[in-house]
């Protein structure tokens, strides 16, 4: 019994020493940049962002311009041909970057914020009824299958805008991260510097926002990139099932239309191939960046990463 106390003590101490070594070591951006994978990811993401921002300059036509002849083969005017509705595939591909990035950014943000708030509240109020209720909610959210939930939520919407997709993705993906953040907050909450802040007269809000949250940045960042990756994939999946916003030009809707129009039977395999490649490129970029972020919170993975 007595020894148990030591055990914990020494553990805490070594944790602190590790934290110390990290803290006094390279800065976070050095750590991320040090990883070859992350570097590739950042460059790749940069390309995508550029593509999205400069879409009007790069794309020959608007993605939703359907005024061309349907099913044209690749040509000078249409590098990848046109869709059955007469849209330029290459232009759609480029404009589609915008939607995916938008969904990634805001879907990731929304899910992260939701998870963070719920995790924070229940972690900080650990053991109270609020924590119990939120815990139950989290558990339920974890066991309810997502797809039918999405279908229900989607069926409700008269207008399927990208924002609605983002909302739905956020709503279905907060539970897991919220749980891990709760655990993280509970360990942080028992750290000495939090007690010290209490002694310094800081209120709960100040402690959470100025002492605890900054400690979680790498976790939150990793969570954000994870959620963004998930959101982009989810948008594609939803769109593929026809549950997305069919008006917007996204890679998911491109795949959906290609599949619906029997693109493969018509030999229009480019239409199916390229959106999937673009999608996986973007997800790859985010995943690679997350490798770098992992190195911050997990120095063991760091050596020669």
């Amino acid at each position, binding site marked *: 019994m007595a020894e148990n106390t030591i055990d914990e003590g020494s553990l805490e101490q070594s944790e602190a020493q590790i934290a110390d070594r990290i803290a006094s070591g390279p800065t976070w951006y050095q750590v991320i940049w040090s990883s070859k994978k992350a570097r590739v990811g950042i460059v790749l993401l940069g390309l995508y962002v550029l593509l999205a921002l400069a879409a009007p300059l790069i794309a020959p036509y608007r993605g939703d311009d359907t005024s061309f002849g349907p099913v044209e083969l690749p040509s000078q005017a249409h590098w990848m041909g046109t869709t059955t509705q007469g849209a330029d595939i290459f232009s759609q591909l480029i404009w589609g970057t915008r939607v995916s990035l938008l969904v990634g950014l805001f879907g990731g943000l929304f899910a992260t914020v939701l998870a963070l708030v719920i995790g924070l509240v229940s972690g900080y109020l650990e053991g109270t009824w609020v924590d119990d209720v939120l815990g*139950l909610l989290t558990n339920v959210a974890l066991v309810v299958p997502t797809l039918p*939930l999405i279908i229900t939520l989607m069926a409700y919407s008269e207008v399927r805008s990208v924002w609605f997709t983002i909302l739905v993705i956020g709503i279905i993906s907060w539970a897991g991260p919220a749980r891990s953040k709760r655990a993280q907050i509970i360990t942080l909450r028992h750290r000495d510097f939090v007690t010290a802040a209490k002694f310094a007269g800081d209120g709960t809000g100040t402690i959470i926002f100025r002492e605890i949250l900054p400690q979680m940045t790498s976790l939150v960042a990793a969570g954000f990139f994870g959620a963004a990756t998930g959101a982009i994939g989810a948008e*594609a999946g939803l769109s593929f099932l026809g549950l997305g916003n069919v008006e917007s030009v996204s890679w998911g809707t491109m795949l959906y239309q290609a599949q619906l129009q029997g693109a493969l*039977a018509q030999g229009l395999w480019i239409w199916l191939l390229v959106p999937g490649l673009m999608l996986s490129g973007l997800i790859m970029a985010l995943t*690679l960046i997350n490798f770098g972020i992992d190195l911050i919170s997990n120095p063991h993975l760091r050596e020669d990463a």
Partner: protein
Amino acid sequence: MSYFLRRIGYFLLTLWAAVTLNFLIPRLQPGDPAEMMVKRLSGKDAEIDPAKIEAMRAMLGEPEGNLLQQYLGYLASLLRGDFGLSYIYYPAPVTEVIGRALPWTLVLVGVTLALSFVLGTVLGAFAAWRRNSMFDSVVTIGSTFIGTLQSFWIALLLLFAFGYVMGWFPTAGGYEASTPGWNGAFLLDALHHSVLPAVVLMLLGPVGWILGMRNTMIMNLREDYIRLARAKGVPDRDIALKYAARNALLPSITGLAMALGGILGGQILIETTFDYPGLGRLMQQAAAGKDYPLLQALLLLTIIGTLVANLVADMLYGVLDPRARKAS
């Protein structure tokens, strides 16, 4: 209240909450199932025959009483194990419909899950052990890349390449000419049909296990007991297997227990793409066709699967990790 009872209580509470949600989800959806059914049966460009809708309504039966009464009735029939008749397979009972789809999913998803787990764990462990080697890079980068691919997209490409162009594999369904049963012809037929879906699952399945195992193993390799084992002169292979892998396996095994619970949800996207007659496809159909009784039963199955898997994973952890036996 004792710890044990609390756990069971929590389990039941979650179950109740999930079951209630399950009751509400379909009821919150707009649209009249009878109308939906008739429209679905007659197709998009077709006249809606009010007589057919009337008949369909009579067939499906109107829900009785207010929402509370429906809810109580629902709970009561759940307790009796009565899930009613499926709408889209009317008049087949939901249990029978699910019973037909269950083996397909169990076999396809179960087998690929087991194989993925074994393969992923072994590869992950090996990559961690040979960290920074060529093998490690190939496995890590490769699985990361595969992990970024969308399952339905791979499925479509495989269908195109090996189904349409090469014609090596059937492109839809679970079997074709043979009669289901324990006969060689059927088993071969079913195997032939499940190759492509299984390939997709086997491509994507191991990714999570590989990366998870690799990470935990790398962390474990840093532990003092590994260093001690080296100091003891324990051969490398034993260190890798008995020390590092044995410890790193713990989270993977609990993960496996959870994943097994998830089997009951099927693989909606993949099964749909391959038109595979499993639970995932069934769920997609039930959702699209607003087959409430079927949808509810499937959801319930998934929920219970996940909950039980959670419980099992907890208990398993207790068995596998001596530390947990005391701690929790």
